[in-house]
C-alpha cells in the first residue's frame, strides 16, 4: 500500500510535468509564430512549472529533500513570469507592489526550503513538506492560482458573445486549476491519494486554459481595451476613405469628422508648434491618430482605452494602407476602391475581439 502511494505520487508528478510541457509547447509555438514577447512570458511560466513537476516527481522517487528544495527554484521563476504576463495584458504595466511582495515571499520560501526542518521523508510515500514551509507554500499556491483565476474570471465576464464558448472553457479550466485543486488538496490531508489527484486536476485545468487561448488568442485582449472603429481619412480634402467596425458605434459622418480633425490638427500645430495630434482622450473613449507626412491620409482608431498593441497595429495598418493604395490618392474619391483595406485590418488586428452583435 505504502509503495503504491509513492508510485501514484511519482506518476502524478510526471503526468503533471508532461501536461505542463504541452502547455509550454503550445504557447511557445504561438509566441514564435506571432513574435509576441508577451506570450513568450506566458510560455516561460509553463516551462518552469514543468521543470518543477519533474523535479518534484524525482524528489518523491528518490526520497530526496534536496531535490525537492531545488524543485522550488523553477517554480519561483515561473510564477513572476505569469504575474507579469497578467499585469501586462490587463493594464500594460506591472504592479510594483505586487511584484515586490511576490519576490519577498518567494525568497523567504526558497531560504526556508533549504533550511533543515521543512521536509520529512515518509517511507513508502515520498518527501512531505511540513511546518512553516508547508503553511507558506500553501499560501503561495493560493496566491498564484487565485491571481490566474481572477484574470480568467474577469475575461469570462467581459467577453463578447462570439468568444463566450471559449471563455467558458477557459473559466472551467481555471476552476479546475484553482478551486478544485484546493479542495482535493484539503481532502489529501486525510486521504493521501487525493494529493496525487490534485496534481492532475491542477495541471489539466492549466492545459484547458492554454487550449482556449491557443484556439483564439483574442481572449487575452478582452480585458485591456474594447476597440470600436478604425477610420481612414483624407487629410487634404477632409473625406472619409475607409471604415471598419469592431463594435457598435453611432453612425458617423466621416466627412465632418475628418474635416474637424484636420482643422484642429492644423490649428494646434500652427499655434503650439508641437507636432501632430496623436491621441484625443474623451470621458469614455480614446481616439488614436496615425499620420504619415508623405501621404495625405490619417488613420483613426476609436477605442475604450489606449494600448501599445493598438498603437503599434495602427502604425502598421497606416503604412500598409499607404503602400497598397498610394496610386489611388489622386484627389478623386471613389471610396469603393479602398474596400480591400478590410483584409489589412483583418490581418493586422486579428487580435482585436469583435462586439458587433452585442
Amino acid at each position: 500500500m505504502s509503495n503504491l502511494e509513492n508510485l501514484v505520487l511519482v506518476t502524478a508528478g510526471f503526468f503533471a510535468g508532461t501536461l505542463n510541457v504541452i502547455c509550454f509547447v503550445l504557447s511557445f509555438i504561438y509566441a514564435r509564430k506571432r513574435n509576441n514577447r508577451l506570450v513568450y512570458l506566458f510560455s516561460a511560466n509553463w516551462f518552469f512549472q514543468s521543470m518543477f513537476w519533474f523535479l518534484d516527481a524525482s524528489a518523491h522517487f528518490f526520497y530526496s529533500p534536496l531535490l525537492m528544495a531545488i524543485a522550488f527554484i523553477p517554480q519561483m521563476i515561473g510564477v513572476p513570469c505569469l504575474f507579469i504576463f497578467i499585469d501586462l495584458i490587463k493594464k500594460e504595466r506591472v504592479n510594483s507592489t505586487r511584484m515586490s511582495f511576490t519576490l519577498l515571499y518567494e525568497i523567504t520560501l526558497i531560504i526556508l526550503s533549504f533550511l533543515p526542518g521543512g521536509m520529512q521523508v515518509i517511507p513508502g510515500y515520498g518527501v512531505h513538506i511540513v511546518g512553516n514551509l508547508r503553511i507558506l507554500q500553501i499560501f503561495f499556491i493560493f496566491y498564484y492560482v487565485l491571481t490566474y483565476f481572477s484574470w480568467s474570471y474577469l475575461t469570462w465576464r467581459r467577453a463578447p458573445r462570439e468568444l463566450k464558448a471559449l471563455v467558458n472553457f477557459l473559466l472551467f479550466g481555471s476552476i479546475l486549476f484553482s478551486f478544485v485543486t484546493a479542495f482535493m488538496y484539503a481532502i489529501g490531508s486525510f486521504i493521501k491519494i487525493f494529493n496525487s489527484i490534485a496534481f492532475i486536476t491542477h495541471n489539466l485545468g492549466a492545459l484547458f486554459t492554454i487550449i482556449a487561448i491557443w484556439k483564439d488568442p483574442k481572449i487575452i485582449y478582452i480585458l485591456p481595451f474594447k476597440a470600436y472603429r478604425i477610420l481612414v481619412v483624407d487629410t487634404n480634402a477632409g473625406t472619409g476613405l475607409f471604415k471598419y467596425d469592431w463594435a457598435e458605434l453611432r453612425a458617423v459622418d466621416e466627412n465632418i469628422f475628418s474635416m474637424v480633425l484636420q482643422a484642429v490638427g492644423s490649428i494646434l500645430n500652427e499655434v503650439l508648434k508641437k507636432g501632430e495630434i496623436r491621441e484625443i482622450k474623451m470621458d469614455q473613449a480614446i481616439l488614436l491618430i496615425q499620420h504619415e507626412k508623405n501621404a495625405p491620409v490619417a488613420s483613426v482608431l476609436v477605442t475604450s482605452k489606449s494600448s501599445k498593441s493598438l498603437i503599434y497595429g495602427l502604425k502598421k495598418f497606416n503604412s500598409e494602407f499607404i503602400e497598397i493604395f498610394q496610386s489611388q490618392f489622386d484627389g478623386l474619391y471613389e471610396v469603393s476602391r479602398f474596400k480591400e483595406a478590410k483584409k489589412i485590418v483583418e490581418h493586422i488586428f486579428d487580435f482585436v475581439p469583435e462586439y458587433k452583435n452585442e
Partner: protein
Amino acid sequence: MVDLENLMLVFSASITGILVSIGGIITVFYAVKRKNRLILLFSSMWLSYAIFWFIDAAAHYLYSIPLMTIAILPQLIGVPCIIVFIELIKKEHVSPIKISILIIIEALLFYITFFVPGNYEIIPGYGVHNKSVLRTFQVIFLFYFVSLYFIWSYQTWRKAPASLKRLTSLLLIGSTLFSVVTALMYAIGTFVKVFNSIAFIINGIGAFTTIIVIFKDPRIIFILPFEAYRILVVDTNESVALFKHDWAKVGKLEETMFSMMLQAIGNVLDDILKKGEVQEIQMDRAVLLIQHDKTYSIASILISSKSSKSLRYGLKQFNDEFIDKFQSVLYDRKETSRFEGVSEIVDKVFDFVPSYKEIL
C-alpha cells in the same frame, strides 16, 4: 590613538544621524502642512536613515555586534521609500524592475546579516567592522541606492530652468558628496581607517544639503515629470478666452480661435461618438489637459509637455476655485478685466510648477 579612532567613528556617525534627522523632521513638517504624501515618503527615508546612524554609532561605542545587526533594519525600510519617491516624481509609477532588483538585494542582505555567521569583527579601539560576504552585499546595496539618487539629481540639474539653476547646482553638489565622494572616502578607508569617519560625515552633509535645497524650493522635484507651458480659461459658449497664464514660452496664441477650435472638436466628437467630453489632446511634443464645467460653460486648459496626475488634480482644483471665486461675475464674460485676480489662484494651486520664462 586607538581610542581616538573609536571616538571619531562614534562622533561622525552621531553627527550624520543628527544632520539626517533634522532633514527628516523638516520634511515631515512640510509634508504634513502641504498634505503631500510624496514628501512624506521622502522624509520617512531620512528618518529611517537617521535611526540607522544612531544605532550604528551606539554599536561602535558599545562594541556590540547585535546592535550593528539591528542597525540594518531601518536602512532596509528607508531605501525603498526613497527609490519609490524618485520613481513617482520621475514617471508617476514605480519601475517593477528597479524595485525588484532592490527587493532581491535587500532580502539577501537581510538573510546574510541575520543568518550567516562570521561577518562581523570587533576591533578593539576602533569598533565593529563588517567583512566578507556581508560587506560585499552592503557595498552593492549602497552603491545601487546612492547611484539612483545621484542620477535623479543629475537629471534634475540638467533640465532645471534658469530660475532654479543655482539651487539645483547645490542639489547636485549635495548628491555628489552623498554618493561619489562618500564612496571614494570609503575606499580609502579600507587602508586608512580614519577616512571611514570622514565618509560618514560627508555622507550626512551631502544628504542634508539635498534636503535643504528641496525644502527651499519644492518645485525642484517637479522639474523632471513635466514642463507646463500655459493655462487658459475659455468660455465654451461664446468662444472667448477669459484668462491666460504662462509658465514657459509657447507659440503665439489667438485665444479666441483656440477656444472656437476646442468647442468645435468637443461638439463634433460628442455628437458623433457620444463618449463624453474631450479631456486630453495628446500631440507629438505636448499635451492639452481640459477641465470642463457644464453649469457655467467654462473650460480650463493646461498645455504641458506631458500629462501628470499632479497637473490634472491641480487643474481640477483651479477650475473649481475659479468658479467659486468668479461665479457672480461669470454672467458678463466679455469684461475679461474682471478676471485679473485669477493669477493668485494659479500661484496658489500651481505653486509646484517650475517657471521657464526667464531662460527663453
